[in-house]
């Protein structure tokens, strides 16, 4: 019988690829908390400022509602820093929508000279990013003793896409002007490391989550090798050096292919990631055998957010949990997570049952 663990001990066990007392749940909440409070985004954030207290309230509210195991210490979207660097974002008024970028700071090569002078943008000093740090402090004060508080930001290419250049232009830079693409990515990666560091300085206390949008969904393995791996490596090494914390990678695309699977080895052996959190293209038995057992790192067992979590029914959520726990749970080293963020309008009863059932069915030793 495994002794009952605190949330911190549970997550620690998973990171060390040991059996916890039960499968921990990481819901990857970005905007859901805001909508759970009955707010809309403009109630909490403008293009230039954000209410850190409200952000913390939203985070704590979902933690209280669902009692999941590890939380990001703030509301998040992808576009912190954009306004400060001269770009434009849009704060939607509609329920369930997310912040978007209307105009990137670097529209062409000439803009980079201007923007580069403002980099590295310091998240501690001003803007919405500063409020993120306030939110971390409040959440940490309230629950930091018992709850793993996760810092979360995007590594180089995704950070550059969101903060500096926009997806289309950066992708074309990768093909047509590689040195320019690297310059942007490196600069955004340095910001990412600094922003994650600031989160640790303000109360984050656990493993680091870095998530990238490109992955092998949008780039070839060769392009990932050139534009993603080195920056994830730098990020994970810096975070470990500064804070002694490991980093897990959330990524997109099919890593089961012959040409893409070796990248996981690069991420583990070269970039030193401690966990792998892919999208829903990866069955639990495949993750168990080809990632956890092969590389001895922890994995995220996946439930598809827009699928069962959003649409239910409860029986399908439970079936998915059983499938994941049965096939990826043996030996520990597995947390439950959505394929990407929990959709903002996920029905509370679905969310609640997902967490409850992971904890019920995912009790160790597994006996199913």
């Amino acid at each position, binding site marked *: 019988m495994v002794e009952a663990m605190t949330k911190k001990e549970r997550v620690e066990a998973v990171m060390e690829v040991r059996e916890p007392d039960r499968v921990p749940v990481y819901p990857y909440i970005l905007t859901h908390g805001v909508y759970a409070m009955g707010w809309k985004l403009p109630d909490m954030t403008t293009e230039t400022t954000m209410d850190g207290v409200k952000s913390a309230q939203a985070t704590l509210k979902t933690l209280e509602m669902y009692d999941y195991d590890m939380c990001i210490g703030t509301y998040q979207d992808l576009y912190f820093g954009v306004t400060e660097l001269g770009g434009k974002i849009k704060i939607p008024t509609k329920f369930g929508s997310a912040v978007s*970028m209307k105009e990137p700071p670097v529209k062409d090569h000439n803009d980079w000279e201007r923007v580069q002078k403002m980099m590295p943008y310091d998240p501690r000093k001003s803007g919405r990013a500063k409020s993120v740090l306030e939110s971390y402090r409040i959440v940490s004060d309230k629950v930091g003793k018992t709850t793993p508080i996760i810092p979360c930001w995007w590594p180089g290419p995704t950070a550059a896409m969101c903060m500096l250049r926009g997806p289309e232009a950066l992708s074309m830079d990768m093909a047509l002007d590689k040195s320019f693409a690297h310059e942007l990515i490196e600069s955004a990666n340095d910001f990412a490391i600094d922003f994650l560091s600031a989160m640790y300085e303000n109360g984050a206390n656990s493993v680091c989550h870095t998530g990238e949008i490109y992955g092998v969904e949008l780039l070839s393995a060769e392009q990932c090798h050139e534009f993603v791996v080195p920056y994830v490596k730098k990020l994970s090494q810096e975070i470990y050096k500064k804070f002694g914390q490991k980093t897990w990678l959330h990524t997109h695309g099919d890593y089961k292919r012959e040409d893409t699977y070796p990248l996981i080895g690069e991420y583990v052996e070269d970039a030193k990631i401690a966990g792998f959190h892919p999208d829903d293209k990866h069955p639990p038995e495949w993750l168990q055998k080809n990632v956890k057992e092969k590389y001895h790192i922890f994995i995220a067992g996946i439930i598809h957010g827009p699928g069962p979590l959003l649409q239910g029914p409860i029986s399908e959520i439970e079936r998915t949990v059983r499938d994941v726990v049965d096939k990826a749970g043996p030996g520990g080293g597995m947390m439950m997570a959505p394929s990407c963020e929990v959709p903002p309008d996920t029905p509370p009863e679905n969310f609640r049952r997902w967490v409850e059932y992971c904890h019920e069915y995912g009790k160790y030793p597994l006996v199913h």
Partner: protein
Amino acid sequence: MGEKEDTLQGIKQNIVDGKAEVTFELTNKSLGMGNTPLETLAAMTDAMNVVGDLYAAKKYFLPNVLTSANAFDKGFSLVQPKLLEGAGSRPKMAKVVIGVCEGDIHDIGKKIVVAMLRGGGFEVFDLGRDIPNQEFIDKAVQEKADIIAQSALMSTSITEMRDLMDLLREGGIRDQFKVMIGGGSATPEFGEKIGVDGYGLTSAEAVEVAGRLSK
């Protein structure tokens, strides 16, 4: 091969290679030397079909497809006015109004689909990204479109698709348009649930679905 055919082949190869400026020059040359706009467009669409095949075969990825689409657009900017001049003599092309849902700025996949649809002979009205549902409807009504196509990558945006269907029904114009969806967050099950007419996982599927819906 004669010079005209060489030029068309050059256009095709340079689009596949993503070389926008050369494509522009060769398209200009092609139209100037007597290749018809339709012959020139055919070479361009052939190129995008090759790009689509390479993408489907996982030999081309986003940066490659975008540079090819950019080269196509450069050439198309010269061909389009010529096509419009002779529009009366051409067979009608099915019209597609396409965009990314409000709240979502991820239009990479949509751009690929736009290029493939154009390559497939559709008249495409690309609204861009982060587009409110009413804009889709207004444009579709204005252009007498056959198909409205919506894309969403983010799970936060997928509910816009459901809202579009509600708006079409409430407005009593659901039957005027076929609706198709795609993007990372959309699934066939979700499409069925909200009552769309078609779902495409890949750009190739999107073209196939659009073809089926426009018959």
